């Protein structure tokens, strides 16, 4: 019986649930340093491929671009969002690989989730 | 605890078991590694548990060193982590079980038996613990010579 008062107090309280996928999208709050889907800026990338070597899950592959130069290819389906690639990226002041705040990355085809 | 306690334990062990204490290491404070020969392994543990009251067995590790398989028992007591290591030949990996002295070793010994194929003499029940029932006999995944085979797809089963 210890919780009776608490129970009835909740009867008129606002629910805690956020009706996320359909409504109340504005109530989804992300902190500053959130680790979401990574973004890759190929214009400033110096193609050092440090990220390929350091990725713990092997989600970053080597690939040749149209000019036959090596460049990284990011497979989001294997990514574990640790941010190591962002950390090792030597490009300054803005890094070529940055984890964004995007979190809706569900897809039906795992091969489509690739960042080039 | 001061390091003198660790050193005194080492001296104690050396005095009791003489040449059978093969190697002692003190890499940092509160860590002690003692290698003993298989003949006195049981006695050393009996000495630790019964006389020194080091009753807490943290875990046991099995390690493949090429020709030998090492069994490490990590005890905690007297304010330090005491690791007793004993090596057994790979051809005949057998060693006495310490379950009668430390009842908590039951699952650790079963795990090592399962993954490295060390037989513990006197263990009450060395049934499989972690590997599946249809795992082939005589294959021990944590040995260095074990090659990982890619699993077959389900439809071929």
């Amino acid at each position, binding site marked *: 019986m210890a919780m009776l008062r608490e129970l009835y107090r909740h009867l008129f309280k606002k629910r805690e649930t956020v009706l996320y996928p359909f409504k109340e999208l504005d109530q989804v709050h992300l902190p500053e340093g959130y680790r979401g889907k990574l973004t890759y800026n190929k214009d400033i990338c110096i193609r050092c491929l440090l990220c390929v070597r350091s990725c713990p899950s092997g989600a970053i592959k080597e690939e040749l671009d149209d000019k036959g130069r090596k460049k990284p290819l990011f497979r989001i389906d294997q990514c*574990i969002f640790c941010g190591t690639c962002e950390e090792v990226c030597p490009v300054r002041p803005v890094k070529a690989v940055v984890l964004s705040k995007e979190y809706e990355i569900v897809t039906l085809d795992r091969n489509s989730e690739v960042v080039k | 605890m001061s390091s003198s306690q660790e050193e005194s334990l080492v001296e104690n062990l050396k005095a009791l078991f003489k040449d059978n204490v093969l190697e002692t290491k003190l890499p940092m404070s509160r860590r002690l590694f003692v290698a003993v020969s298989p003949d006195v392994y049981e006695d050393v543990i009996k000495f630790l548990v019964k006389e020194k009251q080091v*009753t807490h067995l943290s875990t046991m590790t099995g390690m493949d060193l090429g020709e030998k398989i090492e069994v*490490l028992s990590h005890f905690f007591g007297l304010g330090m982590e005491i690791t007793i290591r004993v090596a057994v030949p790979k051809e005949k990996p057998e060693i006495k079980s310490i379950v009668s002295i430390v009842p908590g070793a039951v699952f650790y010994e079963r795990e090592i038996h399962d993954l490295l194929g060390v037989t513990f003499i006197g263990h009450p029940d060395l049934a499989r613990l972690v590997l599946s029932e249809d795992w082939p006999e005589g294959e021990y995944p944590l040995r260095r010579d074990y090659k990982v085979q890619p699993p077959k797809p389900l439809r071929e089963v």
Partner: protein
Amino acid sequence: MSSFIIPIGPQHPALKEPEHFTFFVDGEYVTDVKVRIGYMHRGIEKAMEDRTYNQGIYLASRICGICTEAHTTCFVQNVEYAMDLKPPRRAEFIRVILCELNRLQSHMLWIGAGGHEIGFDTLFMYLWRDRERVLDILELITGNRITYAMMAVGGVRRDITSDMIAKIQKAMDIVEERAKYYKKVVLSEQSIMARTIGIGTLTPREALELCSVGPILRASGIKSDVRADDPYAAYDETPFNVITYDGCDVYSRFLVRVDEMFESINIIRYCLDHMPQDPIRIKLVKVAPEGEAVSRVEAPRGELIHYLMGKGDVKPYRYKIRAPTLGILPSLVRMLTSRENYVVKIGDIPAIVGGIDPCFCCTDRAVKFIDVSKGKTWSCSYDELNKYANRRYRKVG
């Protein structure tokens, strides 16, 4: 006497993770039990040998989703021991804060889940709601809710800034107030007491003999805590009490965990106030010298021990992980077996099994099947699966 066998697991509503218990029962009384684990065998020990130390951190954080911080702390500490380096003091404080936040959320999770095991869903819902506050804080600090990816060999990867501190302190106040309320509930709710007092008894002697760890040991009245006995990180200067209760039953385990929540909150507050201004990370070599190290950490579920053998490579030669639940298993078997003056009923099984806070995910490891599903897809029609299942179960019986 022929006994009636009740198989519980690998799939059973009481067990959130797959393991198998065979209970021999006589009416409502349990006479014997056999345990079988290994359904979550992911081969992490073997896979560790394949990864560099830096990559191993992320694998270690995936040993267990709930006590991830304990595993990563243990891993990086182990590598630091082997390399013989000491991280900056501020990093050690941040580690303590993260470990305690982790413990806080784990204990809240357990008290909720423990309530659920004895059919008290309301407690479950409230605690998991309040646990979100702690998870929000963890997300604020690390950027992730569950696998924090925060530790690095030689320090931590992110700093705790001053505006974070204010937010953490505010959240701690709320959590403390809620924890007080839950303590009151646990202390006064008759139906919780009816289901937990005198259930799953483990005498102090048995607990020592069977090498039990963590809250189970402390609920049997034995003062044993790695944080106090073998201090790591910044625990050597953080004041805290080792909570013990001597009821030796599930109720004492409830109380130990509730009280540890207050201790965690106090530790976090102390650390926030006393963090020195240091760098958070040092540069380091990637090769560990030949040698070995043992690292112990007090995970939310008890003593966690990692053993590392290095051969002067960038990868470990052997990495051994012993999760707390494996240490508790022998005690669990003892608790589940009826003997003189002590009976276990079927209705008590969830309370006892739940009472140890089982985490079989951490417990099972070893065979390596990495790189298997990459680029390959398995397809299997319903009929094929059905046939496979039929064949398999006819064979087993």
